[in-house]
């Protein structure tokens, strides 16, 4: 069983590696940030699989950290300046502008 679980973990690592192509291609910053989410979810799956395959319960704690990580990084990405700064750029707001400050 542990060989099978490790094999699935290997598959997920390759899967993430393929998904990282999206980081290289972009085209927007948010497209690249999507990789953090991909790695978050896949990393959680890889870690719980390895925890079971190797009998190391401590890995589940690491999996919890992975799960939170994408949120931390995305909040850092969205929070400071990025949104506000781009709002000031002369692009029309798709969500019917004039929503007040």
């Amino acid at each position, binding site marked *: 069983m542990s*060989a099978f679980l*490790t094999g699935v973990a290997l598959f997920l*690592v*390759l899967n993430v590696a393929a998904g*990282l192509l999206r980081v290289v291609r972009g085209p927007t910053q948010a497209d690249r940030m999507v990789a953090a989410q991909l790695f978050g979810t896949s990393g959680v799956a890889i870690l719980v699989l*390895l925890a079971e395959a*190797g009998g190391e319960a401590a890995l589940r704690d690491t999996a919890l950290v992975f799960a939170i990580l994408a949120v*931390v990084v995305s909040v*850092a990405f969205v929070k400071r300046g990025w949104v506000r700064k781009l709002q000031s*750029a002369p692009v029309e707001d798709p969500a019917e502008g004039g929503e007040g400050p």
Partner: protein
Amino acid sequence: MTLPPDFAGGWMVSLLDLAVAVLLVALAARLLHTRNLFEAIVLFIAYGLTLSLAWVQVGAPNIALAEAALGAGVTGALFLNTFQRLAERSREGSGMVDPEHGDRGPEAGP
């Protein structure tokens, strides 16, 4: 990693080790090579998470936890903050190099 000593499991683990190692080197190479700062930051986060997997594979889950939380999470967030500072500054004083060089997006417009 304490695996039961069956051959198939060990063989699969070595394959996984190989994949993680190759991914690490590939990420590091691309990370150093790319001209796009934002891409480099995201790749750095991915690198931190892959390194965390590598720590798991050498049997150090505690270091893996620290690497994921600090190496990828906190450092990644700090890098993103710094990037946005740089972008703001380069928009005000036009003398600086545009950190978002090569990234298409609304900033590239006006």
